[in-house]
């Protein structure tokens, strides 16, 4: 588009971007400071706060738990979400309309309400161990993303290809794995990445479902901040940001970032 944009509007956009990225750059600087308190610009240069992440066992433990929740929760959500998305697209007329509303409930209902309700019903009343309750919470949280993203990619899939394979004698299950799945591959990868990031960053559901010895990284970060205000938090944040950049590069190489922007 060639319409002229008012210079003030461009200046405003520039300010918005400085506002968006400035604080993240400041965290980066603060993580390198050689002081025992958080400061920017950094004084001295040291990587000891990165070393500290590894030295504090709570961080080590919660990083492992967070990764377990993100991989397993997303994995389970894919296993139950892909068939659901397939059913919604393939058998739309045969299924009631409220079903797709049911599938977005984990996004509609406030996460913190889900967390509290799971604590009451699953952890306390049903007596499910903390680790499993946490996994249930993370799985629920990401199911809507899986169903929505995979549905979007099934919407542009031509089901007559599948019918052709079946009419040529291929069993339905085999057809799904050899014909349908390869065609919606990019949707599945996008769903995985979106779910993984949602799970690893989650606070509100995990808040209620962590217990003695079982916690996730964001919850541990909050707990650490209550007691210490040292650059460790900044260095953990930097590690998480580098991880995010890595994910973005992978997405860009495989699918193009336009997928995340949707």
């Amino acid at each position, binding site marked *: 588009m060639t319409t002229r944009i008012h210079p003030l509007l461009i200046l*405003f956009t520039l300010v918005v971007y400085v506002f968006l990225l400035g604080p993240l750059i400041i965290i980066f600087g603060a993580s390198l400071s050689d002081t025992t308190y958080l400061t920017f610009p950094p004084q001295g240069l040291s990587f000891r706060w990165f070393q500290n992440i590894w030295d504090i066992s709570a961080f080590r433990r919660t990083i492992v738990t967070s990764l377990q929740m993100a991989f397993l929760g997303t994995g389970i959500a894919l296993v139950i979400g892909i068939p659901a998305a397939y059913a919604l697209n393939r058998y739309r007329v045969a299924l009631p309309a409220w079903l797709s509303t049911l599938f977005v409930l984990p996004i509609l209902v406030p996460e913190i309400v889900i967390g509290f309700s799971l604590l009451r019903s699953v952890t306390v009343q049903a007596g499910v161990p903390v680790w499993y309750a946490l996994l249930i919470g993370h799985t629920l949280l990401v199911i809507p993303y899986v169903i929505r993203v995979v549905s979007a990619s099934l919407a542009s899939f031509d089901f007559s290809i599948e019918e052709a394979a079946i009419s040529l004698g291929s069993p339905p299950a085999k057809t799904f794995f050899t014909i349908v799945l390869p065609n919606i591959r990019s949707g599945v990868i996008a769903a995985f990445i979106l779910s993984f990031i949602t799970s690893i*960053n989650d606070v509100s559901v995990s808040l209620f479902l962590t217990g003695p010895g079982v916690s996730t990284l964001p919850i541990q970060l909050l707990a650490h901040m209550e007691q210490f205000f040292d650059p460790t938090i900044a260095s953990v944040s930097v590690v998480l940001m580098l991880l995010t950049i890595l994910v973005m590069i992978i997405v860009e190489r495989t699918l193009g970032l336009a997928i995340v922007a949707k």
Partner: protein
Amino acid sequence: MKRLAGWMLASPATLAITFLLVIPVAITVGLSFGSPGQGDWGIVQPYADFFASGFRRNVLWRTFTVAGWVTVISLAAGLATAYVVARCPPWMKSTLIVLAVFPLLTGVVVRSFAWLVLLGREGMVNQILQATGLTDGPVAMLYTPGAVIVAMVYIFVPLMVLVLVGVLENIPEDLLQASSSLGAGPVASFFQITLPLAVPGLIVGAVLVFTASFTSYATPHLLGGTRQMMMGTFLQQRALVAFDWPGAAVVAAIMLAVIVATVLVMTRLARRLNPMAT
């Protein structure tokens, strides 16, 4: 046959959401009601208690005002930014979108923490204020509603920009060319063509930001603390600090009611205001 196949494939997700979300949340809502014989108000006694407490009314009101301000500011900043981004040359547009996606993918704890550093007594904002002579001593900015609003705007602007860039790109270019060839300037075109067509998208963005900020926990916890409690932090405090589960259930049920009402009313409004709808 088709019906059976459809249900079989959809059943794991249906059962999981029904038993692990719908029923537990329904139990929470049930718990929020009292017993029929209790107090003057019968089963809605816990709600009467909630609204009788000045402190609790304040928490609810603060949550509404903070979420309202965050939504309005994010809409304005997001729309202006998206307008520029949507009109950039392609290479610049994709760079700007990547730069908006990056903070979006960074966790809420990390992004709230950044403002904890910036707004602290020794933080950069205070250093700048003192260096420029605007204030003599450090200003207490943390644990005020303003701090929560700034950090939440920071968190939600990228989301708003991405939603609105999509909306603005969907507006057919022909319409803008027609309006300019008929003599409308850019400002008139914006208010008479772009804005009305963007209204449904603006509503979607506003609902996303309002509901997310109304129910958020990490940001009010870090930047508002116990002094500026909001519904999310109050729910956590009732449930995990005071162990007042019926009280927490009332807070949860009110949050749920506000969110569901907002979504229902606004989606209906979006449908009615859509100039493209027949």
